[in-house]
Every structure is written in structure tokens, then in C-alpha cells.
């Protein structure tokens, strides 16, 4: 299994690439990469394949195409003209505007697909572990909140059905009351039940004390220095270097205080993170992609990223090196299949 931190970097890289290009070749390539990774890395149970992404595309692409085609009146290839008196819609409908809209829909689908993969491969538990140990209680609360969401959705469905069978119809806002009240009460009852169960299992027995005042004071100081540095950076151009230094010091104080406070929380971890070679490979893959997208590397034609269909639709350029670079995102799928073979 790939570490949650490596997955986080992977998802962010997908986001960066998707927002850096509208070249359909690269966008489609990226979409295919996320689908391949989803198909190979998601746990078999609950694996949904490419179906949710395709379903999303079936809505997002036509909607974006239509919206952009009707509202953006740029481009040379005019297909038809809407009467000028129509507010917003009036004017020429061009092939270029439709194409650009479709590209936007495709990009949205790619981002959706990337995060759908991230969602499937990272258990709630691992995400919560990313919270600093000093905030362990907050992490647990977050974890519970996240498991409460699907439970609440299920109870909402149950309550709607139960009210329908006693003749209830939802017509206006007031009609939601018979649904909302049982939902709220059952949620509260569940919270009380969970609290009781957690107390019975010893939760809060050893760490039932507030953070010492010193920790809070240093945390406040760190935040103050960071904020001050940031404001100076924004509004005092001549003090930029000092401001940057201030921001770094502020972050340093906060990280240090959290580490020290975390050590004081007596708590052990059942499955500690173990950084493996696979994780390094995933990070290297993401690094390659980010380098190709963001750095002026020799031989790589980054200009091909900045494709636009305006003013006249033309075949987008394709640089094989950029295409190859994007394949760095497929590393999680490669290490996953490598593992299952071994």
C-alpha cells in the first residue's frame, strides 16, 4: 500500500496539471492515467471503476459546452446567431466557444476522477493521522464526524420513507420539519450512545487534561509572527526579505511547539507509517510531472500546454516529452501491479 502522504502529493499533482493546461491531448491523457490508477489501486471491495467519472463527464461536458457556447461569443467559426435582444445569450454561437466549454468540462471530469481515486485509496483513519499528535482529540472528533456523514445519509433516507408511509408529502419548506426533527434527535441519541461507548472503552482516561498554558502562548506567538510577516510581505515591498524571514520563523515556532506538545500526549500508534521504496517512486513520479509542467526544462516544449481553441479551432500541438512526463502519475498503478505479481 502506498503511504497517505504520497497519495496526497499525487492528488495535488493531478490538480496542478489539470489547472495548467487546456490541451485536449494532455487532459485526456491525464484522465486516462487517473482511471488506470483507480482501476488498479482502489480496494477490490467498493471499487467502482471508471463509471462514476464517466457519469460525471456525461453531465459536466454537455453542460459546460452549452453554457460556454451560449455565453462566450468569441471565435471565428460562427455556427448560428442568437437575436441580440436576448440578455447574455444574444450574439454569435461559435465552434470555438463550444470546444472551449467541452474542454472545461473534460478538465473538471479529470479533477473529479483524481479525487475519486484519492478518496477510494485512503481510509478515513489514515487521513486523520495526518493531524498533529498534539491535536489528537481534534483528530478523533474529525474521524467520528466523517463516519457520521454516511450514517446520517442513511437515517435521512429511512426517515423520509417512514414519514411517507404515514401520508407525509414534501411540498414546502415547512414539510421538512417531520423529517428534520427525527434526524436531529436520532443524531443526538447516536452521539450520546457513542460517547457512552467511548467512555466505557477508556477514552479520555489518560489524556484528560488541557494543553498547558505555555504551549498555547507559544502557539499564539508563532501565529502572530507568521501573520505579521505575511502582511509585511503584502504591503511593504522594500521589507520583502525581512518579511519572508519572519514568515519562516513563525512557521518554525508553530511546528516546534506542536512537536513538543505532541510528545507530551501519551499515545501509541498501531500501524505507524513506514516509508517504503514504493512511496519514494510515487513521489519521484509526481516530481517528474511537476518539473515538466512548472520548470523551463530544455527540449520540453511547455508552450504546448497553453493551447486555446480561439480565435480559430485548430489541431492542438502535442509534445511527446510532455506526454511522457505526465506518465509519471501512473507510478502508483505500476508499483501496485508489481506488488501483486511478486
Amino acid at each position, binding site marked *: 500500500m502506498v503511504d497517505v502522504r504520497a497519495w496526497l502529493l499525487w492528488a495535488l499533482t493531478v490538480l496542478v496539471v489539470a489547472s495548467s493546461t487546456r490541451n485536449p491531448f494532455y487532459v485526456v491523457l491525464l484522465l486516462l492515467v487517473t482511471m488506470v490508477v483507480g482501476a488498479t489501486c482502489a480496494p477490490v*471491495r*467498493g471499487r467502482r471503476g471508471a463509471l462514476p467519472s464517466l457519469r460525471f463527464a456525461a453531465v459536466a461536458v454537455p453542460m459546460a459546452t452549452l453554457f460556454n457556447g451560449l455565453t462566450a461569443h468569441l471565435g471565428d467559426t460562427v455556427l448560428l446567431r442568437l437575436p441580440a435582444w436576448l440578455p447574455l445569450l444574444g450574439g454569435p454561437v461559435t465552434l470555438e466557444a463550444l470546444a472551449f466549454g467541452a474542454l472545461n468540462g473534460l478538465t473538471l471530469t479529470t479533477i473529479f476522477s483524481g479525487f475519486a481515486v484519492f478518496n477510494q485509496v485512503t*481510509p*478515513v*483513519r489514515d487521513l486523520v493521522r495526518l493531524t498533529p499528535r498534539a491535536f489528537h482529540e481534534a483528530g*478523533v472528533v474529525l*474521524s*467520528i464526524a466523517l*463516519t457520521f456523514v*454516511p*450514517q446520517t445519509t442513511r*437515517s435521512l433516507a*429511512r*426517515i423520509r*420513507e*417512514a*414519514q*411517507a*408511509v*404515514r*401520508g*407525509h*408529502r414534501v411540498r414546502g419548506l415547512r414539510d421538512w*420539519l*417531520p423529517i428534520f*426533527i*427525527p434526524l436531529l*434527535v*436520532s443524531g443526538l441519541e*447516536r452521539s450520546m*450512545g*457513542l*460517547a*457512552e*461507548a*467511548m*467512555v*466505557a*472503552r*477508556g*477514552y*479520555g*482516561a*489518560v*489524556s*484528560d487534561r488541557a494543553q498547558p498554558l505555555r504551549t498555547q502562548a507559544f502557539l499564539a506567538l508563532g501565529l502572530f509572527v507568521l501573520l505579521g510577516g505575511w502582511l509585511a510581505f503584502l504591503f511593504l515591498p522594500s521589507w520583502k526579505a525581512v518579511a519572508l524571514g519572519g514568515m519562516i520563523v513563525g512557521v518554525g515556532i508553530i511546528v516546534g511547539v506542536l512537536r513538543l506538545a505532541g510528545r507530551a500526549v*501519551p*499515545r*501509541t*500508534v*498501531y*500501524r*505507524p507509517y513506514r516509508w517504503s521504496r514504493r512511496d519514494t517512486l510515487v513521489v519521484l513520479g509526481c516530481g517528474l510531472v511537476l518539473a515538466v509542467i512548472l520548470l523551463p526544462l530544455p527540449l520540453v516544449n511547455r508552450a504546448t500546454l497553453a493551447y486555446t481553441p480561439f480565435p480559430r479551432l485548430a489541431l492542438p500541438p502535442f509534445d511527446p516529452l510532455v506526454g511522457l512526463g505526465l506518465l509519471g502519475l501512473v507510478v502508483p498503478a505500476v508499483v501496485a501491479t508489481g506488488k501483486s505479481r511478486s
Partner: protein
Amino acid sequence: MIHFNHLTYTYPGSPRPVLADVTLDIAEGEFVLLAGPSGAGKSTLLRCLNGLVPHFTGGTLSGSVTVAGHDPVAEGPQVLSRVVGFIFQDPEAQFVVDRVEDEVAFALENAAIPPAEMRARIEQALDLVDLVPLRDRPLDTLSGGEKQRVAIAAALALRPRLLVLDEPTSQLDPQSAEEVLAALVRLNRDLGLTMVLAEHRLERILPHVHRLIYLPAPQIDGGMVEVLSGPPRQVLHQMDLTPPLVTLGKALGWEPLPLTVEEARHFTDRKSQIANRKSSSIIRNPQSTIHNPLLAVRSLHFSYDGEPALRDVTLTIGEGELVVLMGRNGSGKTTLLKCIVGLLCPQQGEIRLAGEPLAGRETADVCQNIGYLPQEPDALLFADTVAEELQVTLRNHGLVDHPPLDPTVLLERLGLSDLATSYPRDLSVGQRQRVALGAVTVTRPRLLLFDEPTRGMDYVAKRDLVHLLREWQAEGAGILLVTHDVEWAAQAADRVVMLRQGQAVADGSPSDVLAGSPLFAPQIARLFPGTGWLTVEDVVS
């Protein structure tokens, strides 16, 4: 191990104590069953063992409790968590994270157990309840029985000396309940773990326990009631409502009282008067054979995302007929009920109520003529008073001015007259169930569909429900019940329909369908095979 010394406890705001002057001793390694009607204070007594009462609930407490040398009242539930493992009714309500292994690890991480020891403990806990193959599974993909075993493993990982279980199988179907009980029996036999378990359905668990404690319902005047405690047979003699086998044994004077069908067979082999009776076959509810068809379901098909849940189901229910629908979990029982009231739309087939097709009609509209009680009645209740719940349904159907049935009469019939102004959610499980029944039947529907109406009910509440159903039947209502409770079904049914994997595989009289089923045969049917007898009344009448 456990010592209650003149313990009296009153909930905050309650005029009388729920536990009055309880004195009890439980030895190490004992498997103790705690029985008694709803509201007798079983859960309260269990919660005194780890200090949840009074630390979590408030209230006033006198007397003392000692558990393995600890004082739960003074030390509190967090400290007692190292000694007492506590399992609640609903396994889902106690989970913090979403994966089996992580859930078991949660309490250990909080207790700062070193990782090496933690691994060993988790391994052992999963092994003890047979969960090793499921260790990586997300919790929401598990069955009810598997979830409850995860909760037990999570408690075992803390190495408790005492396991306390509050109706751990009340939310489970018979197979899942059997799994959980088998795990508990093994833990008690192999590890000598002391266990205290509260339960309504005694028949399954009685053969395994060393001691039975019976808490009678508290008296209205707050007077003292005697808590019975001792070997199961001794206490069963003093209890009113017992499992069918024990009731039969008491009626026929069998000594020692049989707790299992095997034990009872010794008596049926010896006693000739029983053998002679076997020849007389009985006819149950002869009036149930003449019916005008009320509900007609024909060739019904339904699938969830291509997964068939109902396949070619055909079923009729006549006026005044009570049909029980049985089958394992996932066999399509609830799906069938939902299709009838229009909550699900069948892909094929036809449903008619009194000759009128129901297809295309809204659920809210259909339910004026069909009273449907869903599995979790709490989802229905939201009004401030019991009486108001009935009014809401009438208002939804526009029947407030001329109700088909006087709501006060209905409340009286349901035994809720005294509670008409109470807040529904404060009532006991059985009472809430009856409020929900009132809310769906106040339109005087001709057909009643009840999904697991006896969940969490004690023997008294179940007996009362049968009486109520008989009254509705006599007025001509057709009734379709879904239940896992075989003993109760044997009492109530005119006809039994068995579903398996979405198909109706048996449809006939209870004696034909139930007696021949290995999984669903009631105790009496297993004791007297081939006689058609299902209940104690069949034998002793």
C-alpha cells in the same frame, strides 16, 4: 468477583428508584444471564458494573458495588475500562473508526499500549472471535453478527476480567445471533472469562449459563421487589413467562426442567400420554381458510442495480388473514413490503389491493389503506406527545375532522391511554413500537404490513401484540408480518410464506412450513416431529 450490597439507584427526575435494595454476588468465571421485563432496570444494573451509572447518567445511588476489588462508583468508567469490557445493543453505535483492525486498536492506542504488545493483543482478540479473515474489511461491509463480534474483540483487546453485554443479539437475525452466542460461550469455556449478559429471548442462551438473575418489574408504589438469583432451573420455576420448552416442562411437571430439546426428549420418550396424543392432528384457526382476497401480488420482480432481490413472487392475503413472511437476512422480505407500499418500484409484476392496481400511486396515498410499520419505528416519531403522533397522520391524510377511527379508542386499545401526553421518545422500546403502530393504523387501513415488530420486546409485550393483531383480524384486516422470531410466528400465523434468495419457496400452514424447516422450526415442533404441534397450547390443550 462482583458484589452488590443493598444497591438502590434513582434516575435524575424520576420519582421512584429503578433498582431497589439489590444484593447479589457473582463468582469469577461465571456466565450469568440477566432476564426481566422491559423497564425492570437490566441495563441500569449492567451500567453500575463499570460506573457508567452514575458517572454518565447522574442520579442518586446508595449502597455499594465492588467489581474485582474496584469501586466503580468512586473510580469511574475510565478506570474500570481496564477491568470491564462493555458491549452495547447496537454494534454500529459504538464504532469510532471504519476498519475492523483499527477499531480493535483504537482503545489500545488511547491507553498508550506499546506497539509490540498491541499487535499481540489485537491478534489474540481477533482470533478469539474468529475475525482474522475479516481484519482489513471496512466495517460497513460486515453483517450484524460480524459487527457485534468486532465490538467484542475491541473490548477483549483491553484484557478485561469481566465482559458485560447489554442485549447483544437483540438487533440480529437468528444466524448472526447464533454466531455471537457461540463466540461468547467459547470465551467463557476457554478463557474462564466472567460474563454478565442481559437478554429477552432466553431459549437460545439458557443451556449455556451457570446462573440466571431475574429482575421483576418495579412496583408502581415503589415497593421492594425480590430479585431472583440462582441456577437457571431453580429461577425458571419462579418466573411467569419462560421459553416454550420450559413452560411445557412446568405444565407437565417434568423434573429437572429441560433447557434444550435434547433434554426434553428424555421425557417424551418415557411419557406415554404424550405419545398417545401424537396421533391427534390439530387444525389451527379453521376460520382462516375462507377469505376474500385483499392483497394480490403477481409475478413480482425487483432488482437493486441489476442484483435480483425478488424473483417471480406471487402472494395473496385474504381479509382477516394473518400471514407471516420468513427467510434469512437478504432474502427479500423488506424489499417485498417496500414494493407493496410503493417505496420501491418493481420492474415487473402486478400488485392489487382489493382488486385495484397500486402501480403508479404515491406512497403517501397508498398508505391511507395500507398501514406499514418499518423496521425502525423511531424514524416515525417526532411529535411532542403520543396523542399528537396520531393526529399528525390524520392531518397528512386530511382526515382530522372525520377520523375513520376515534384516536382515543385506538390509544386505549394499544394500552397507551395513560401515556397520551408523554413525549414518545422517552418511552420504552415496546411502548414506542405501539405508538408507531398507532401512527400507521389510525387511518384504519384494510391491510397491515409490519416489519420485525417484536424487535427488543419482552415476552409480555409480544403476547399483548398477538392479542391486538387478533382483534384487528377479527375486524377483517389482512395482516402481513415479517419476523425472525420463530416462537412468536408460531403463535401468531395463520399461514407462513418462506422466501429464499428472492423466491417464495414455501407457502402453507405454519405446521407444514415451520415444522419441516431445519432453521425455523420452533422448539415444540422439534420436540414432537410429525405432529404438527408448534406451541405449548397445541400440546397441553
